[in-house]
């Protein structure tokens, strides 16, 4: 069974009639890193939000099966509990909610759903400190409110920290490379690569081939007009980098 199977997914903004996803089909296998590339406005971020369960969108048709279960009827926290993780393109600042409080709440919510008791404070601190160190996240950042006063790169690294703490089955990285300098890009890619495993899959949404030099994809999908219009191997990303989207998108339209 595929880890993620999206069938004929059709969605629009809740308060507008404009349809953004137009019967999208996509399959992601366990262990795979699937890159999704596509021009601006093709619906890439919408796909990530719809999968994560953001309320601003209405799903009008289709289904998305995670491990065979349709997740589109579930609340966002239930999807997360099933092992779905979205690394946000624009991680949100939450003034007043401490980073450690937030991470602990997330870890404990997951443990509770798995029938485990709350994590002990020493165990929690050890776990976070270990992962934070690998990602170059300072103690000062851990003491602050969630993402408040973080640079763009720090926010992205913070997303990867959350991902590594929650160890999801399926991680969707929405333009995690945007706003990153080359050093930060390497740290983020190392964080992702360290988590690659036969049981886990990644959907990497990006505009640029550059990220894929560091996170080598198994498959590359091209998205346009709310659909996957072409799929191929890693070489497809290089082709897009050289020739742009015009050829493929033009042919599809």
């Amino acid at each position, binding site marked *: 069974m595929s880890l993620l199977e999206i069938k004929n997914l059709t969605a629009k903004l809740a308060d507008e009639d404009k349809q953004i996803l137009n019967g999208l089909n996509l399959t992601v296998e366990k262990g795979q890193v699937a890159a999704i590339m596509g021009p601006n406005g093709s619906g890439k971020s919408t796909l990530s939000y719809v999968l*994560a*369960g*953001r*309320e601003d969108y209405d799903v009008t048709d289709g289904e998305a099966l995670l491990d065979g279960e349709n997740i589109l009827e579930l*609340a*966002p*926290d239930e*999807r*997360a*509990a099933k092992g779905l*993780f*979205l690394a*946000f393109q624009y*991680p*949100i600042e*939450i*003034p*007043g*909610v401490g980073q450690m*409080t*937030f991470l602990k*709440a*997330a870890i404990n*919510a*997951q443990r509770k*759903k798995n029938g485990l008791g709350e994590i002990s404070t020493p165990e929690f601190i050890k776990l976070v400190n270990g992962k934070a160190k690998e990602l170059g996240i300072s103690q000062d950042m851990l003491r602050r*409110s969630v993402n408040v006063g973080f640079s763009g790169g720090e926010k992205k690294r913070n997303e990867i920290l*959350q991902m590594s703490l*929650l160890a999801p089955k399926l991680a969707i990285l929405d333009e995690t490379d945007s706003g990153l300098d080359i050093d930060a890009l390497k740290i983020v890619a190392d964080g992702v690569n360290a988590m690659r495993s036969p049981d886990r899959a990644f959907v990497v949404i990006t505009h640029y081939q550059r990220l894929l030099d560091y996170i080598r994809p198994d498959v590359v999908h091209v998205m346009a007009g709310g659909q996957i219009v072409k799929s191929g191997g890693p070489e497809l990303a290089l082709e897009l980098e050289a020739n742009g989207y015009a050829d493929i998108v033009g042919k599809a339209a």
Partner: protein
Amino acid sequence: MNAVTPIRTAAEQSLISAYAALRAAGAPAPAVEDLRAQGYSRFEASGLPHRRVEEWKYTDLRAMMREAKPLAGAPDASTLLAAKVAVGNIPRIGGSRLVMVDGFYSPELSDTGTMPDGVKVTSLANAIVGRPEIVARLAGSAAAQANAAFALNAAFLTDGLVIEIAPGTDVGHVLDLISITSAGEARLINARVLVLVGEGASAGIVETHVGPAGTDYQKNVALQVVVGNGATLEHGRRQIEGDQALHLATLDADVGAGAHFDTLTLTTGAAVSRSQLFTRFVGENSKATLRGVTMLRGRQHADTSLLMDHAVPHCESKELFKHILDNEAHGVFQGKIIVQPVAQKTDGRMMSQTIMLAEGPAMDNKPELEIFADDVACGHGCTCGELDPDLMFYLKARGIPHGEAEALLVEAFAREAIEDFGEGPLGVVEELREAMLATILDWMRARA
């Protein structure tokens, strides 16, 4: 002969009878009789305030107080014993504990033996006998005197506390004042507390108001504060009265020169409550911070009405009040800042913020700035809305369930009003902040 006889409500008639009985029983001192008479005549002239009285526009006391309960008498031995058990279950905040039962100071339940040096605690009933300087303090500010709840409190003035902090004393910890209403038949509790902080002294006091659930007792309390020149007073207040209670509280504070007054109230209790804060700068270069967090559910009604009087130049006041409303609850915030003509270089900033957790609650905000000086910085703001859906989505996307995500965001919202309370010399205020934040989380978790 066109004398108008006002039509009295049942509650007003009971209050009139109660005063007559009190008067017949006699006052402990002539000065007390005068104070009572002044308060009563004010009440007699206007009756209970109603919605056509601007100050009470959103809290129609005449309609909300259908009847007046009989005036509580001094607690007997069995009442004191029950109160002792109840008070023992309330975790301590700070150091020495002072207890009032049904509005009467109870030395038996208080830590009278461990009062820090420089702190003198007397029952009001004792202090007003033979100490005219104390009686003189009890008259209150002009604004308080004109206020219906304060006038009624004066009319029934009997007991309470006088806390005197000697000049230069650093108390070093917070006085933990519990005001408990005993179980049994619902009564009207009346109490007055006077806190005199001497020149250069620093002190903290935390009031906790508790009472039985399921009883519609009524409580009308007043706290008068004089913060001497160069003194600091940090005042915390927890209103966690029983769910059927009516709670009226007046704070009347004079802040001297170079002084610092900080007050923070957490309101979660009572069916109907009103917290009134009358604060005046009487000396230059002083600071006052007035803050509050109110959490209401069901059909609870809570009103915070403040009057910040910048009567002298070079003072700074900050007012920050947060409401968290659920179900059909009703919150009220009335904030008036007066900058007198002489009060140049005043800095006043007032903010009221509300989070609605449901479609049903209502919030009334009425900011009033009366600025008569021309070289001042004054501002006010007001927000009202639901929890930010983007923040909620982010938290839920990390697996945090809806209720828990709401609790995190509400705690963060309230924390802003709580976290820098007591930036003065009293480190132990930390205990109060933690207790308040714990109450907020418990309140949120009880929703689920």
